[in-house]
């Protein structure tokens, strides 16, 4: 019902927007996904559903500030749950080289966290993203400031602090943390002939209400080779290490990464393979012996993008959970995705 209301509201707003001259743009991004069992032990739900429907409004508020509002409907317990995704005011016109966001937003760290899920170049969430952040990305309310440092090369520094009452998937308002979630992202940009690179370095600290402490350090690297309008080659990767110390527990260190090389054809077809890896470095058994463990995935993905307004993908995910002390879990899933955007489309980041 909520989903119907949202979609109905969008069409009303879209019709209004067609007539107004305020510069407000609207869009609806629909992300349809399906997953089906690829082996007898598969955890696939054998369903094709709308994973999310994002309704976005963005516009200049006045000569200084811009505003963004996005509402998303997700499938939860068989029903569409409508929730606020982003609601922030920002500006890049106050001080040269400086921009800020105030409100609720996806935290500007790493690579995937900075993009809506329907904009990702693959269907499923990489293991490291799912374990360390959320299946979709970290959302919180706070202030984020970015400054293009006055250096002879491109280096953008982002600092942010958010409420930190919750972290990742939550069904309540959470509790006041010992300190706000705070983070840093250093982002550069390099050009080598036809190859453009965007390397980044991220850090995040969280001191939760229950006394647990979490530190994340990560590196992200995105590389692109374009041939005319065709994205001939894409490299996207992130490596993260997490230190998590519960109030009365021992420090647990985990390391995870994914890498996704993709080749693009003139026809709009693209083919890539994602490699996922995650391990708990400090895992030991009750006698104190170190326990080797890993979660891995290989995800060949075939896509077709006739324009920036629609994408069609299919993939086969081969996941393994291995540990010295337990049986290997083998999970294979056939994935499908169709995404489309109605209305305007925000400018693409690199």
């Amino acid at each position, binding site marked *: 019902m909520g989903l119907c209301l949202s979609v109905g509201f969008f069409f009303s707003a879209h019709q209004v927007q067609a007539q107004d001259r305020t510069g407000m743009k609207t869009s609806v991004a629909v992300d349809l996904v399906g997953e089906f069992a690829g082996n007898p032990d598969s*955890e696939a*739900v054998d369903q094709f559903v709308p994973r999310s429907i994002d309704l976005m409004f963005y516009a200049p508020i006045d000569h200084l500030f811009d505003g963004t509002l996005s509402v998303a409907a997700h*499938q*939860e*317990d*068989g029903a569409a749950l409508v929730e606020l995704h982003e609601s922030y005011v920002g500006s890049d016109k106050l001080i040269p080289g400086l921009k800020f966001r105030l409100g609720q937003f996806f935290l500007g760290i790493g690579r995937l966290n900075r993009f809506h899920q329907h904009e990702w170049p693959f269907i499923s969430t990489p293991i490291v993203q799912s*374990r360390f952040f959320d299946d979709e990305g970290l959302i919180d309310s706070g202030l984020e400031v970015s400054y293009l440092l006055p250096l002879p090369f491109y280096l953008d520094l982002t600092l942010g602090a958010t409420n930190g009452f*919750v*972290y*990742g*998937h*939550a*069904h*309540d308002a*959470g509790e006041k943390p010992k300190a706000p979630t705070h983070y840093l992202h250093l982002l550069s940009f390099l050009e080598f002939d036809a190859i453009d690179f965007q390397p980044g370095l991220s850090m995040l600290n969280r001191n*939760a209400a*229950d006394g*647990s402490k979490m530190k994340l350090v990560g590196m992200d690297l995105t590389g692109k080779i374009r041939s005319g309008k065709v994205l001939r080659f894409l490299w996207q990767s992130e490596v993260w290490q997490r230190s*998590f110390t*519960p*109030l*009365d*527990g*021992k420090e*647990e260190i*985990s390391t995870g990464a994914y890498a996704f090389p993709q080749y693009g054809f003139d026809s709009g077809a693209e083919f890539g393979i994602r490699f996922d890896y995650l391990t*708990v470095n400090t*895992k*030991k*058994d*009750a*006698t*104190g012996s170190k*326990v080797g*463990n890993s979660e891995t995935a290989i995800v060949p993905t075939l896509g077709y993008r006739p324009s920036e307004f629609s994408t069609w993908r299919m993939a086969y995910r081969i996941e393994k*959970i291995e*540990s010295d*002390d*337990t049986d290997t*879990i083998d999970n294979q899933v056939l994935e499908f995705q169709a995404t489309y955007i109605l209305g305007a489309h925000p400018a693409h980041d690199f």
Partner: protein
Amino acid sequence: MRIFVLSLVSIFLGCGSSNNGSDGDDSTFSFGNKNYVVIEQTTLNTSETEVDGTGSFIAKDALAAVASGNHFHIVGTLKESSTLTLNANTTDSNTAGLQLNFQNAATVLKVSMEFGGNSVDLTDKFAGKDAASVSYHIDIHNDETPAHVLIWDGSVTEFSEENALFNSEDGPAAPGNGSGSFWGVTLTDSKLTKLVVGEPEFEEE
């Protein structure tokens, strides 16, 4: 020579079908083809098919991580006034875990959830359940805050929210999150006949 004789004697004593605290200082045992480490030995008697008495132990194999979701199937019997406690996401000294307590209180099954000195009574969710014989499936999603706990009757095979006797998302909420990557059990004059851990049965859509 004396050491050799003593070794033979200890091997001989160790060949019995059960162990208890008075047998020696052996701190590990096997139950249901899984290995456990005794943390507190009062009167624990262990065999491959049951553990009874009073004491506590943890599984030798750790969970995937502190912030992980796991499923437990626990079957046992409770004498009057006896208790059986599942310690999920506990430390290697069986402390700071999220505890689920089952107690036979004058033939009424009392159930509570406890963490860090805070206790939540769940007894009304188990009204009419046999206090002497417990069999429950339990999902503890310690990767959510607070931990998401679901408890189903031992006979359930479809692990949905609708079939759960208790779902902490519907309240009352869990009093926190376990602080370790181990799991264990504490018995007080009770008996355990089955103990299984695995991947969580319930997944959020």
